[in-house]
């Protein structure tokens, strides 16, 4: 199978660890996004923020892939590269066409991207920023339907009303403008908009962060239902690990622009192989005031790593409690430690790290 567009790369057909090509909806290869750091009056480039620095992963059709990691580690940037809201600094983003061809979205022009825009949708992290303040909700949610000639007039209104109802918003709100909503209501408008066009891949960036547990449960159930109905595929970015645990089939853990661990969700939570993942799992607050003092939270000491000037060797070494001499000298590769479970740590096999046990306790 060969895929093509103007000057994009061929999709390699011989496997190198990725799953069978027919199942792969998205295959991200060596993706890089660097932002220039400028200084002085002429805004001379003095360095680069390596927001995303050579990451590779794939997403299967109908799968939900989680993306977690420290604030600022490049999750949103990766999502925006996949949707080609940013030009790539390097790497490829292969997306499976309607007729099964793998197309590299990387080099496509804005015009060439058009047919894909409706198949790839993003739910933005900051709803306030991403909703047009001068449009009422009916237009925000309905315009994609109108532009793509899916519905018009009364039918359009009905479609919008039913979309709003599915995300738990009253259709009565349809004529209001974004500022007249609460944070969680605005977030749900963004969700309704992203789902309006029956997309194939949705990048959900902190899509449920502003919702209370009950409404969040309703939205997560909806997201699962749609997946079953339409074989939808999701990339789910979230800081809420209980959401990740519930919704994701596999999880990618990032640290300072790189992938440090990939595994099936259950595996990752039960038996992490990377010390950063362990620290992350240990910091989830326990919903019981009587447990306040009793938590074995791993406090990450030391400076937060800087993607413009990352540490030598393993990027996590200045904050890792298992650090050894080798760690600051050699960069650990992402390796398969157990079947389907990858980690980038020199000592992944030797360390015994704590995960989360089935009782919800740390073990």
């Amino acid at each position, binding site marked *: 199978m060969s895929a093509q567009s103007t000057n994009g790369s061929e999709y390699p057909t011989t496997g190198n660890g990725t799953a069978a090509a027919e199942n792969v909806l998205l295959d991200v290869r060596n993706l890089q996004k660097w932002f220039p750091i400028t200084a002085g009056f002429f805004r001379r480039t003095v360095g680069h923020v390596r927001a995303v620095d050579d990451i590779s992963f794939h997403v299967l059709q109908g799968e939900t892939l989680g993306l977690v990691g420290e*604030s600022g580690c490049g999750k949103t940037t990766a999502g925006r590269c996949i949707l080609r809201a940013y030009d790539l600094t390097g790497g490829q983003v292969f997306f499976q066409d309607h007729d099964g061809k793998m197309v590299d979205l990387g080099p496509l022009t804005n015009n060439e991207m058009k047919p894909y825009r409706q198949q790839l949708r993003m739910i933005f992290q900051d709803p306030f920023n991403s909703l047009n303040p001068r449009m009422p909700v009916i237009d925000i949610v309905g315009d994609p339907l109108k532009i793509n000639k899916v519905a018009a007039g009364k039918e359009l209104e009905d479609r919008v009303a039913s979309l709003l109802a599915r995300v738990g918003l009253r259709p009565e709100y349809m004529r209001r403008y974004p500022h007249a909503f*609460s944070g969680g209501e605005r977030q749900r408008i963004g969700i309704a908009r992203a789902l309006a066009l029956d997309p194939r891949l949705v990048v959900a960036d*902190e899509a449920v962060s502003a919702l209370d547990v*009950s409404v969040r449960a309703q939205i997560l159930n909806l997201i699962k239902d749609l997946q079953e109905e339409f074989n939808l595929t999701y990339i789910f970015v979230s800081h809420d690990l209980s959401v990740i645990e519930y919704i994701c089939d596999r999880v990618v853990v990032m640290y300072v622009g790189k992938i440090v661990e990939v595994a099936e969700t259950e595996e990752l939570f039960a038996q992490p192989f990377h010390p950063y993942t362990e620290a992350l799992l240990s*910091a989830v607050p326990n919903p019981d005031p009587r447990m306040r003092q009793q938590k074995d939270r791993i406090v990450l000491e030391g400076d937060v790593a800087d993607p413009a000037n990352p540490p030598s060797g393993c990027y996590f070494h200045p904050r890792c409690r298992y650090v050894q001499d080798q760690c600051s000298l050699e960069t650990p590769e992402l390796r398969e430690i157990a079947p389907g479970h990858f980690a980038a740590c020199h000592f992944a096999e030797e360390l015994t790290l704590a995960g989360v046990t089935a009782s919800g306790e740390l073990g």
Partner: protein
Amino acid sequence: MESPVLIEIKNLKTHFFLDEGTVQAVNGVDFTIHQHKTLCVVGESGCGKSVTARSILQIVDQPGRIVEGEILYHRPFRLSAAGNGEWTSGETGANGNSTTEIIDLAALDPRGREIRAIRGQDISMIFQEPMTSLSPIHTVGNQITEAIKLHTDMLDDEADEHAVELLRRVGIPRPEERLGTYPFELSGGMRQRVMIAMALSCNPALLIADEPTTAVDVTTQAQILELLEELQDEYGMAIMLITHDLGVVAEMADDVVVMYLGQVAERGDVDSIFHDPKHPYTQSLLKSIPRLGVSRNRQRLDSIRGMVPDPYNRPSGCMFGPRCDHFMPGRCDAISPPAIPLGPGREVHCLLYEDE
């Protein structure tokens, strides 16, 4: 001993007057914030938490306004004159009341001098969506130092230094260099932390934090929550924390207010709310908390059945009635449940407890 009262909210009503009708976003809310303590406010999306917070600062958006009620601010004073020192209350009189000045914030002119002097200086707020309060066209450094210079007598250099120190404490790498960046160059969580740094720059007597850590990972969140507790100890700051994360509530709160549809459903100390919840809404809220390692095998998550009622057609009687498992026909749809006291600072609005 109970710590002194800082803010007393009495029967607060804030409504929005739209063409389609009136949205009773906050509709008769009572609660108290104590000095040096953390009060958490929880409740369903859209129940009026942010509007309550904005009412305290008199920054409710048009066409909304406070239509009834009082927000009594028992103003403490600074120990040092520098403009950012520790807070203390006045002498405690023989009757146990402090002699501090009391100001009704609800009665102040939203554009007047008095409330402007209180904003930022006495009470500051971390907004739910960072971009609502960060300017897209000014650098991060300018925005923080402006805030510092406005409310203290620090000079440029000192203000810069203070800004860098604050950014470091909220976990921003390379803070010196970050002063020159614009908000769009930051990740979602970094913006949120810049806003936290800004709000903390003048050591307010009350920090209102509206979902302050939704955009950061749990390790950074732990660091920020610890910072808040440290500043609370250092300066006697009170915190009103609005959050959906009941794990954060369990970790931070002294007291909890549970809201439903513009009203208080129940309030009390954190232990009672988690271990002896009375209101059926609180009970179902606690039941829907997903726990790590437990939700893994579940097919569907629990959510509270039904939908928030139409804002222009609110149910009669108890607002939670249409979704309540204990609904008593003829009573719950007829009587609006009054506050039923259960102990000091503890009350519930539910007819099940009327005879107790």
